[in-house]
């Protein structure tokens, strides 16, 4: 009896995804380039939960952590899985910037099969609540008066944090230090402890510190104001004419997979991006829903890579490609 019930249940779950010509028959592997708790890992796990809740997949999905070299290992892992129909990966912008700076990063996003762009993550520029700077202009002119004395905490030099700094330095002529910390927690701790003066931070990360009166925002790295920070100016509104480089996240698959497989994944993620659970997740985290299909995503690669190469070269970072 139980077995029959299970079979019926299985059928009911499997049915909605049938017409595409491809249906997963065994667990799907979702590759991420961070360890448990990292940005892409958290997104992947939230995504798996949403797909389970909304019954978008007839099979289970498992997150596989392939950390190393800021995405290089995960990208290479996907490239090795050529033709594999049950593996997908979550990429971020570093998958495009890494091959520019690292010789070992032989696999670029362009060598993988694009599926969908999902998110753009805006950022905000924060200072400690008792800092003397009320606006981004205040900060930049203070940096100009004491070149190299003010400090910003952030990730690696290819990270978005540093890109924002480079752009601001270029248009203003000011100069301040950029101090790399491996963990997001350490970056915030350095700011709250008064060891650095400014940081670029994700809006939802900053939210609680602002509410507790520990942090203040100077500007947001975005084209338009976020709903939660309607009174914080964008970079342009703050008087700095720079194009905000978004943190982008999306889905790729191994190279050489059949066309109906691509269509299947495209369908799944399009459906996912329209579900209430996904919309709630995006809103809760103050991300920007930025769904793009495979063809558009491939075009996005080129624009993004070109823009990043220019910024990195201006910053004096050695590019190898």
């Amino acid at each position, binding site marked *: 009896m139980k077995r029959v019930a299970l079979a019926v249940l299985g059928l009911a779950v499997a049915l909605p995804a049938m017409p595409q010509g491809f249906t997963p028959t065994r667990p799907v592997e979702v590759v991420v380039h961070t360890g448990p708790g990292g940005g892409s890992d958290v997104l992947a*796990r939230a995504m798996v939960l949403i797909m389970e809740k909304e019954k978008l997949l007839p099979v289970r999905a498992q997150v596989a952590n392939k950390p190393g070299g800021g995405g290089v290992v995960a990208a290479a892992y996907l490239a090795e899985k050529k033709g594999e129909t049950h593996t997908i990966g979550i990429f971020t912008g570093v998958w495009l910037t890494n091959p520019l700076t690292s*010789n070992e990063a032989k696999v670029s996003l362009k060598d993988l099969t694009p599926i969908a762009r999902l998110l753009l993550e805006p950022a905000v520029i924060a200072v400690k609540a008792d800092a003397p700077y009320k606006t981004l202009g205040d900060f930049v002119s203070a940096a100009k008066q004491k070149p190299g004395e003010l400090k910003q905490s952030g990730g690696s030099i290819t990270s978005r944090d540093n890109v924002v700094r480079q752009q601001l330095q270029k248009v203003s002529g000011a100069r301040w230090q950029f101090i790399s910390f491996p963990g997001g927690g350490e970056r915030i701790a350095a700011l709250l402890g008064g060891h650095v003066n400014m940081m670029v931070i994700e809006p939802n990360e900053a939210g609680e510190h602002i509410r507790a009166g520990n942090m203040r925002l100077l500007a947001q790295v975005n084209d338009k104001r976020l709903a939660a920070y309607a009174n914080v100016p964008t970079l342009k509104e703050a008087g700095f004419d720079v194009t905000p480089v978004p943190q982008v996240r999306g889905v790729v698959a191994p190279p050489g997979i059949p066309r109906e497989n691509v269509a299947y994944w495209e369908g799944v993620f399009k459906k996912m991006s329209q579900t209430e659970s996904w919309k709630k997740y995006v809103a809760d985290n103050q991300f920007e829903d930025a769904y793009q299909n495979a063809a558009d995503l491939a075009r996005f690669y080129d624009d993004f890579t070109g823009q990043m190469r220019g910024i990195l070269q201006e910053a004096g970072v050695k590019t190898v490609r």
Partner: protein
Amino acid sequence: MQGFAVALQPMNLLWCFLGVVLGTVIGVMPGLGPPATIAMLLPLTFLMNPASAMIMLAGIYYGAKYGGSTTSILLNVPGESASVATCFDGYQMARKGRAGAALGIAAIASFIAGTVGVLGLMLIAPPLAKMALAFSSPEYFALMALGLAMVVLLAGRSMVKALLAMLVGLWLAGIGTDLFSQTSRFTFGQMELLSGVDFVVVAIGVFAIGEVLTNMEGREAAKALPVPKGIRNLLPTLQDLKDSRFAFANGSLVGFLIGVLPGAGSTIASFISYGLEKAVSRRPEQFGQGVVEGVAAPEAANNSETGGALVPMLTLGIPGSSTTAVLLAALVLWGFKPGPLFIPENPALFWGLVASMYIGNVMLLVLNMPLVPLFAQVLRTPTYILYPLILGISVIGVYSTSGSLFDVWLLAGFGLLGYLMRKLDYPSAPLILGLVLGGALERALRQSLMMSDGSLSILVSRPVSAVMLSLTLLILLIPLFNKFNAWRLKALDN
């Protein structure tokens, strides 16, 4: 009190029990660690209420710390990076037929320190978190330098050999992608090396595989290690407890305080408290040959670190390790907003968690003590079965962590290195120490110098780092002083 009302609900007791049992199991098995386990269980937690889920996940976190010592003591295979320091004396005790005593002391130290950690979390979390923020790169540099100075205490007969081994460890720490410039160092074009050499691979290779290779040399090796008969001889004696009482205190304090710092961690805590215990011991020469304090101190530090690590996570929303990062992500996924206002706004969850940790620590002690005699029987296995078993566990442990065959080859390489080091009488502890601290030491130094625009004075002009660096210097002078004293006594004799 409100916390116990939450934690004592039958369902929550059950979740707590499940968490600590699961934690113990993954702690005993090398490989799969708490962050991966907790991440895997996340989907399940959505069926539970958040307090129960948090209680269970935290149980896995501190339960794993209890289990981690088991394979370190019995097989010289560190289950987690935080139990490497436990190998030094724990495995030697096992070789002398005192495995039960070592395991028992480890469990008792874990219980005491785990409880001290929760006490600290309960009583002084918010002010302590503020103090931890005063700690920045120069202070971290001084802390790592202090840890590295422990090499003079871990050295065997030859200081030169110890320093050489440490330098190799520091070099190994440099392999991988440089955080600051994103360039790769010493990777020889190998993609697998971009993320650096995994510390656990080196530790298991040098300790466990090296040990097995060395022991396989002798023809007479095919006999089992001594295991005394009778339950009484399998448990720690009163004398053991007496010898360890200061180690319990030292480990609990050092572990908790280092745990509070977001940039340190339990591995560093266990090494520093081991070194400290040896530095103030009346019998430092016996450390590394199986003294019970040498097990108690690092095990205590490793367990009270858990309570400490939860301080910045719960009071500020700042994760200090990958396990706390996963726990933080879980809170966000459940709809909470971790940050400075988390505890005042969710008192039931916080106090429920704290209360459950007291209960969980008692459960772990009750659970682990009866297992001690049982585990000690493992050593009755004849070596022709035990050694292949150790090799198997080591390979599976490494492979299950990374899923990469490359790491298994690395493991073999480091096993060979461990064997050669034993043959040539190089101590392996300094190598591990260099590897553990090297990355953080370099990062902290470079961050400090960026903060000061290149001036080294930042390291000594800040009081906390100045004090720690002076301590470092003092420790470095110990061997010179000992030499002088030996010379003086000799001169007096003549």
